[in-house]
């Protein structure tokens, strides 16, 4: 069984919602669609207050190369374009739309029929992906058209599809693979065409045997696509780890996967690309896993972008009384919410509700130099050292010790027997070093 070699952990899987089919979440009363849901420059609104918008209509345009278009996820009236409190409590610009009905833009094909053939050229496909505002749906929300345009002088060999879903609790990608398998395959062929590659590997962890079996069956019909079962290990869904696991190549420090001829896309993104290219449908909804130990009905919901988190939790049976923390994303890399009215964005993969006793951090003790963090780090860094250097503000030494290679997976923090906030310290250092590097340029 393939996997990446160095480090990694295996937290309890706790995939409570893996047998729950994807359900459509009813439309909320209002949606607030943030203008910056992706990495890069925020989009610029192209509509005004009071305008009527249809579902799928362009409402904000990404003007620089690393940016993404944003479309209305509902039909209604724009009540305001203003700052709203996001998940962190800071104010971010958003378009607030009062929902009236659900009338889709005429250009969008809303039927369920599978459309296999794609006669667009590779430039047109990338253009379409850009137009439809597709971003990476694994969490980082990197604009997909940037990934699909191979820089000059580089050549892509493999398209790797990330179906690992290595984070515990999350099941949205798993359900998508089971329910939209054929669409995924078409999505992969489209992307292979755009990149000009003839080999594609789908990596799936072996705790999803039904998905592996189903996709293996489907892959027989498509040339160049193979399915590879992977050992269950976190953070296998990390770009660099997946490349190591699937094609045994190592991305050099500070470089992108294209350096070793690989492009990695998430299953969610692949499905979104299929819908964008074949159905003309922009990225306006996504599958969100809502789960937790005490949640009444763990489920996988198809939610429109901009739906408040509270509505999603409500659909899963409401917030249990002893809730201590609500996390957006996976339990390892996700971020605790400070505000339940924060909207679902293109990068929200899950909403996890933890009871009080499970959400508290353990008491912080002194470092006992056990080096568990060093053994666990999938990027072969020394987390204890980076955390110490960052705490003492030795940012230059942080840089020399490759702090920028940290993928912030949190494995070091997870294994630390002294409960030290290693990743917190490293994040501060990484932000500082990043700032210094940008200023140097």
């Amino acid at each position, binding site marked *: 069984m393939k996997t990446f070699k160095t480090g990694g952990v295996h937290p309890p899987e706790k995939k409570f919602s893996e047998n729950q089919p994807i359900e459509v979440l009813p439309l909320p009363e209002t949606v607030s669609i943030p203008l910056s849901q992706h990495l890069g420059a925020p989009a610029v609104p192209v509509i005004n207050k009071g305008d009527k918008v249809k579902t799928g209509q362009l409402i904000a345009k990404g003007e620089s190369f690393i940016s993404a278009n944003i479309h209305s996820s509902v039909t209604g009236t724009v009540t305001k374009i203003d700052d709203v409190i996001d998940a*962190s*409590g*800071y*104010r971010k610009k958003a378009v607030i739309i009062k929902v009236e009905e659900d009338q889709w833009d005429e250009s969008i094909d809303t039927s369920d029929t599978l459309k296999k053939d794609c006669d667009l050229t590779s430039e047109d496909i990338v253009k379409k992906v850009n137009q439809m505002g597709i971003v990476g749906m694994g969490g980082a929300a990197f604009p997909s058209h940037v990934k699909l345009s191979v820089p000059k002088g580089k050549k892509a060999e493999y398209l790797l599809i990330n179906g690992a879903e290595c984070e515990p609790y999350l099941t949205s990608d798993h359900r998508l693979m089971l329910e939209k398998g054929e669409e995924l395959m078409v999505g992969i062929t489209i992307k292979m065409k755009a990149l000009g590659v003839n080999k594609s590997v789908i990596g799936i962890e072996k705790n999803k045997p039904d998905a592996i079996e189903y996709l293996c069956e489907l892959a027989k019909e498509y040339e160049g696509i193979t399915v590879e079962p992977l050992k269950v290990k976190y953070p296998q869904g990390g770009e660099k780890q997946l490349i190591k696991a699937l094609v045994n190549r190592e991305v050099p420090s500070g470089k992108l996967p294209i350096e070793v001829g690989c492009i990695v896309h998430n299953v969610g993104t692949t499905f979104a690309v299929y819908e964008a290219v074949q159905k003309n449908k922009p990225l306006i909804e996504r599958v969100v896993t809502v789960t937790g130990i005490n949640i009444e009905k763990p489920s996988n919901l198809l939610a429109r972008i901009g739906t408040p988190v509270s509505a999603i939790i409500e659909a899963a049976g409401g917030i249990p009384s002893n809730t201590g923390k609500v996390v957006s994303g996976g339990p390892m890399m996700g971020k605790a919410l*400070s505000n339940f009215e924060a909207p679902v964005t293109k990068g929200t993969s899950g909403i996890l509700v933890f009871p009080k006793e499970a959400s508290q*951090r353990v008491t912080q003790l002194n470092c006992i130099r056990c080096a568990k963090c060093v053994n666990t780090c999938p990027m072969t860094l020394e987390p204890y050292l980076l955390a110490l250097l960052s705490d003492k503000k030795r940012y230059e030494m942080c840089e020399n010790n490759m702090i920028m290679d940290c993928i912030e997976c949190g494995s070091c923090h997870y294994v630390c027997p002294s409960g030290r906030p290693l990743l917190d*310290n490293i994040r501060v250092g990484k*932000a500082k070093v990043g700032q210094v590097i940008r200023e140097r340029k």
Partner: protein
Amino acid sequence: MNEIVLYSVLSIGSLGTLMALVLYIVAQRFKVIEDPRIDQVEDKLPGANCGGCGYAGCRNFAEEIVKAGTLEGFNCPPGGSEVLSEVASVLGLEAEEQESMVAVVLCSGSRQVAPPKTRFEGLNTCEFAHSLYAGLSGCPYGCLGEGDCVVSCNFDAMCMDENTGLPVIIEEKCVACGACVKACPRNIIELRKKGKKSRRIFVSCINREKGGVARKNCKVACIGCGRCVKECKFEAITLENNLAYIDFNKCTLCRKCPQECPTSAIHEINFPPRKPKEKKENKTAEA
């Protein structure tokens, strides 16, 4: 026996003399001539190496000031004008009287007036908390209360108030070196003129949100109503981005604005208790 002693004394002695000679020649040949005043100036400085002057420690400051030969542009915040006049006497210069400054915390969002809405767990530094979320009360401008400023203070002039969750500056110890100003990720701390008898008036808030929004999170936030601006006869108060700011160089400490502030965001410090109203109004009119 005697011979051995004699030879060894002679050989070691001559070797020693030879080496001493070499060392003497080298020392004479390659000696570094340093201005003796640098040592003298350094002796006068506080020696805390706080960096408040903008130089890398007291020695560096002494070197630079001797090289420049003037006091212009040099300031030792912890030493104040006293130390500077001593330094001036070493250099044979005349020191000008300098206004002493003090650090002021521009946030009064204590736990009582800005109740926490969330709980924070993680690395207990302001730097990290600032990168993560808006703050316990939800105010994205207010004090995070993790105490980076207290840690940065070299003079024991700061402590956290357990009750309010805000840092307190001990005026007598503060030397205005500016370390806390740099340490605060939200720029809440400002160096202000100490003022006559340590009396100061300032707006204790830096929230630039609209009034209603700011008020929702904190009862004592500046809501940008502009009443203080209208009240001030000396044009010392400016209103920008929903936030009033009092220029300490223009403020005459007339004590009119604090009364006007509807949220009591304007603080007056070290003033005697207010006397009956009429008397004071006459005074300011004269001024």
